[in-house]
């Protein structure tokens, strides 16, 4: 684990980060750096960010999460954001933020299944 306060775990070839704390802006910034460094260090094929504990995702946090997924993608890693609460989804869309281009899944299980399908597809190539 790197400098931040959000643990990043490795399960097979997937990294899992579960955000369980109220997010300060600085923590989100550090998290982004940590995740990208962990991807490089572990050569993870997939990244899952679990936000099921987050009651609030404002425009700054939403943009940082989306940007992290885009940065991971540039490195060659697919990101799935899992567990967005109904009220968070409703709030983001009402604000006009649609998280375009970001893959999401209902739950951690669904996110892992999605990552496994990506890995299998990559191996088949």
């Amino acid at each position: 684990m790197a400098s931040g306060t959000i643990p990043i775990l490795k399960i097979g070839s997937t990294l899992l980060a579960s955000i369980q704390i109220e997010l300060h802006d600085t923590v989100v910034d550090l998290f982004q750096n940590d995740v990208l460094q962990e991807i490089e260090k572990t050569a993870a094929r997939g990244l899952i960010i679990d936000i099921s504990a987050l009651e609030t995702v404002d425009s700054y946090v939403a943009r940082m999460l989306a940007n992290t997924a885009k940065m991971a993608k540039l490195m060659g890693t697919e990101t799935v954001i899992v567990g967005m609460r109904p009220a968070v989804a409703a709030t983001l869309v009402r604000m006009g933020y649609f998280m375009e281009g970001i893959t999401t899944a209902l739950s951690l299980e669904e996110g892992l299944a999605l990552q496994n399908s990506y890995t299998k597809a990559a191996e088949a190539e």
Partner: protein
Amino acid sequence: MQVLSASAVPHEDNPLWEIRIDKEADIVAVRQCARDLAKEHGFDQFAVAALTTAASELSRNVWVHAHKGVARIKILRNGKRVGIELEFEDHGPGIADLNRALAGGFSTAKSLGLGLSGTKRLVDEFNIDTEPGRGTKIVIRKWKREF
């Protein structure tokens, strides 16, 4: 009424929580105070998230653009209706082009360009008073829905 956030101070007669914003962590303090009050007064989860997000956006605006200011949160009663009012006041640079800022897609240093326009869509009432060089005061209100 219990004090919900360490830096929030309620007045006795007309409960008013006042939170100084002069560091990044205060964004979280304002957000938590708004969330706790909305929950305590029985707002549904969608209204709680909307109000909390609005609180977060506007307190970040104060921190990023003015570096210091104050958030005041109070409970409103209109007959049987219950509402929450949030006021943000700073003496920062103000907003030169308010129409553009409210139209959205107006991106500054640390926002999506959705700060003001997005926040406006999350609440029932939105009032802004700003002047370049003088500062900004924004008041938002959200009323609990009665079924």
